[in-house]
């Protein structure tokens, strides 16, 4: 049980500033994913939370208690490393017993050979072995207790690492890309297991990943980190539908969101030669960027399932098709706006069942419809324009 509070965390390595003021609150029992591309500082932030790294500035609190100056072992956190960091010379049981031994055996009893010289501690040792056994059963690795890490598969090692973290009864569970060393199929399986583990334990989880799918499917909330700053912290659905900036919109969602540069005119929004007949309320001459998710675009063609007609105004665009990716259940069409060849478009469409095994053929020139109700509008600097204020302006105009 723990609430984690980070305030204004700064960290530099040499002259490179890796974290530029991170403030974050993780609620008790929450599953928070820290997502961002490689090298953006996720591991550094996690290591600062665990105490392996000290921040240059800023504070870490767990349940209101200052942790910033405490050693890792005093913070009650457990951490699963990307490469698992199992002790290769120890059996699985010894690996998992390590935190217990360190926490509960006195210093002299931990020295080599003291097992035989401290027989009065045998009951304690047996109790710890029992605890290890219990956690091993919970993770279905009790038959592996006498093996060494080298004799285990990737998935089994992963579980041992989880087990070692669990036996110590942590208040806060930290994981650094724990699935990145597993193959695709196992990854999906372990993903659900970790979510189950979170639900069953009720612990607070901070989960680092560069994979947006993991972040979106597992978390209560996602914190998107880029170049050392938090872009947005929100539940997955909010992050997807209401990105606060173009960077967020681009990072979340695959294929990437479509971004159309438009210019406000009295009669509507202009995209190249096309005029979007949309009442908008922006000052004429304002440059804006309209973001449209690929699955919001509507394309009618034989073999594709018919989407419901959208409500509200639609933008109609001519498009030159460049390539089609058939993913089985859906297709992704890549192309360019006919009038503006350098603006790439991505469309995701459901395939209808009737299309069967036939290759989907689409004409080169396509016409598509973009419902403006789903559009997110950004200013020229990439900042999301508040939807309410946009609506208010439209009302004022109407």
């Amino acid at each position, binding site marked *: 049980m723990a609430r984690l509070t980070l305030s204004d965390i700064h960290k530099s390595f040499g002259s490179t500033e890796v974290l530029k003021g991170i403030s974050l609150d993780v609620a008790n029992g929450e599953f928070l994913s820290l997502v961002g591309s490689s090298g953006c500082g996720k591991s550094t932030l996690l290591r600062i939370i665990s*105490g392996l790294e000290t921040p240059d500035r800023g504070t870490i609190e767990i349940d209101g208690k200052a942790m910033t100056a405490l050693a890792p072992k005093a913070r009650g956190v*457990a951490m699963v490393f990307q*490469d698992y960091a*199992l*002790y290769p010379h120890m059996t699985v049981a010894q690996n998992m017993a390590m935190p217990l031994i360190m926490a509960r055996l006195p210093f002299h009893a931990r020295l080599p050979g003291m097992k035989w010289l401290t027989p009065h501690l045998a009951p304690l040792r047996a109790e710890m072995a029992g605890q290890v056994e219990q956690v091993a059963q919970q993770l279905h690795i009790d038959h592996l207790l006498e093996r060494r890490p080298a004799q285990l598969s990737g998935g089994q090692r992963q579980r041992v690492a989880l087990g070692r973290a669990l036996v110590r009864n942590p208040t806060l569970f930290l994981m650094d890309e724990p699935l990145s060393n597993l193959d695709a199929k196992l990854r999906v399986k372990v993903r659900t297991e970790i979510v189950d583990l979170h639900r069953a334990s009720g612990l607070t989880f901070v989960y680092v990943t560069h994979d947006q799918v993991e972040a979106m499917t597992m978390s209560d909330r996602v914190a998107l980190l880029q170049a050392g700053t938090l872009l947005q912290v929100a539940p997955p659905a909010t992050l997807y539908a209401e990105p606060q900036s173009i960077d967020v919109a681009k990072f979340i969602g695959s294929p990437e969101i479509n971004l159309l540069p438009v210019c406000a005119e009295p009669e509507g929004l202009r995209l190249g030669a096309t005029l979007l007949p949309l009442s908008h309320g922006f000052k004429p001459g304002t440059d804006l960027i309209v973001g449209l998710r690929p699955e919001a675009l509507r394309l009618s063609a034989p073999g594709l399932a018919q989407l419901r007609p959208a409500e509200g105004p639609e933008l109609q665009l001519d498009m030159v098709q460049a390539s089609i990716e058939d993913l089985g259940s859906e297709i992704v069409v890549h192309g360019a706006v006919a009038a503006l060849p350098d603006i790439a478009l991505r469309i995701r469409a459901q395939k209808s069942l009737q299309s069967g095994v036939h290759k989907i053929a689409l004409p080169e020139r396509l016409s598509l419809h973009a419902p403006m109700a789903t559009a997110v509008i950004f200013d020229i600097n990439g900042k999301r324009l508040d939807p309410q204020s946009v609506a208010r302006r439209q009302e004022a105009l109407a």
Partner: protein
Amino acid sequence: MSVRTTFERRQNRIAYAFVAPATLLIVLIYLAPMAMVALTSFTDYTLVSDYWEWVGFDNYRQMLADPAVSNAVRNTFVYAALFLPGAFIIPLLLAIAIQERKQFRSILELVYFLPVTSTLAAMALVWAGLMDSRQGVINAALGWFGLGPLNFLGDPGTVLFALAGISLWSVIGFNMVLFLAGLTAIPRSLYEAAAIDGADHPVDQFFRVTWPMLAPTSVFVAVTSSITAFKLFDTVAILTKGKPDHASEVFLYLTFLEGFEYFNMGYASALSVVFLGVIFIFAAVQTFWADRQTHS
């Protein structure tokens, strides 16, 4: 089918042709001399007489009764007991201390490695000068504390200490570099996992992570240092010639004396075979251990 086998046979012939020169060299340089030594050890061949005959195990039987051999074995063991702990523990501690330094690490490495690069035969003479009972710096230093003077190389009670000290000086840098390589190969994340698990005290770190992870290196250092101890020869030959009163007459030096001073080649060969056997055991331990490490 037959085409295939002809092809394979030709391939085999080429392969044999390729390994032939190396095989020949190994046979000429290593195996043949060893066989010669083994054969000679069953004869009473001496360099001063053309006549020789097979004597079976006489040389080996003589060895068991020879007080010079038991003296040499005892000297070798005493020397090894003085040399080995230092040759292992000092480099290990140095390596751990240097490993944790960021500044000066390479300079310290270089300084400790310098003796390894020097010619021991020449440096032995320098040491003899330092340890001289009248003009030596070491005795001058002892004098400051009101001790000495000690005749390091001339006193039966100190000569093995002195030789062990010189060998230590020459080997510490080498073993330290081996330990440093072993330490560098330990993943940092293990220490981080240990810190999270509560093992952040240096003693816990050492016994839970460093020492077990260093096991292959330790075995290698222990075995090679044991071999070094057992084949002590050059400093003895240059500085003491087995003196005083046979107190520094170690096994290999005795073998040399028998062969090239007393010309008892048969007997010297028998001593050499025993020497080879001991080295072989050390090498076998090393190989067996290395195997175990890679398979577990």
